[in-house]
């Protein structure tokens, strides 16, 4: 099976870049409100994938880049045991599960149990310069290639542009 990914080396960023072990500061609710200027901040770590459009990253060099968490199926199942049910991942694989997008594992594209799942419901914004530096430190990393990149991008767009209606036509049964 053809891999969705190409290996990439460098500090340039593009949509579909897989960036493992990104650090994410988590401000407590009262951060910045105390009189002192020194505070303790918790730092989370996550594997993220870039969702900001490549053209915006290249031309504008925005101060912040949007990313979404990308996890293994097994780690997702720990948080969501219902996904252990037969057929749940098949719905995601077919693109029928709102907010989730499945990508093959860079190391084993033919093994569906090693696939990765992107969670579009969590959009994390991190500084461009931090991510560029982190990308450099990662060395060889993975970047989604066409047309899997466009498929992923479209899935995110479809999730983001959805409209909730106040009422709906009753379903046909």
């Amino acid at each position, binding site marked *: 099976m053809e891999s969705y990914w190409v290996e990439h080396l460098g500090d340039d960023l593009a949509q579909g870049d897989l960036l493992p072990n990104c*650090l*994410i*500061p*988590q401000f407590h609710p009262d951060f*910045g409100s105390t009189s002192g*200027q*020194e*505070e*303790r*901040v*918790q*730092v*989370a*770590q*996550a594997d993220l994938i870039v969702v900001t459009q490549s053209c915006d990253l290249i*031309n*504008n060099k*925005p*101060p912040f880049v949007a990313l979404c*968490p990308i*996890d293994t199926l097994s*780690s*997702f199942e*720990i*948080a*969501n045991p*219902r*996904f252990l*049910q037969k*057929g*749940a991942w098949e*719905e*995601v694989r077919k693109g*029928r*599960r709102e*907010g*989730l997008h499945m990508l093959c594992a860079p190391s084993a594209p033919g093994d569906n149990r090693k696939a990765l799942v992107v*969670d579009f*419901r*969590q959009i994390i914004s991190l500084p461009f310069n931090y991510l560029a530096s982190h990308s450099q430190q990662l060395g060889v990393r993975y970047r989604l290639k066409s047309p899997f990149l466009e498929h992923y991008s479209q899935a995110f767009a479809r999730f983001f542009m959805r409209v909730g209606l106040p009422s709906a036509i009753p379903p046909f*049964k």
Partner: protein
Amino acid sequence: MPLIAELPPIRFVAHEFPQADVFGDTGKSLTKIADLATRHWRDRVEHILSESENEEPPDYQSIPLQVVKSVKVRYQFAGKLKPIPYDWDD
């Protein structure tokens, strides 16, 4: 090694008794009994049928971000973020 096929998922499907020509009192009474039986059965499995029809894949919770450390930071107010340059292509 022979593979054993998995059992298909159990689904309840409502069937109608086929309509047939009835003859005589016995036929009419059999049809009446069949209708009663159908109604009786349908009333009891309706909720199962509707559950099956409304079956949806499970919803999910995002995985909480894993805190790996906490750092002491000295913050400096850098001012309000300003709009970034906007390219106006004519």
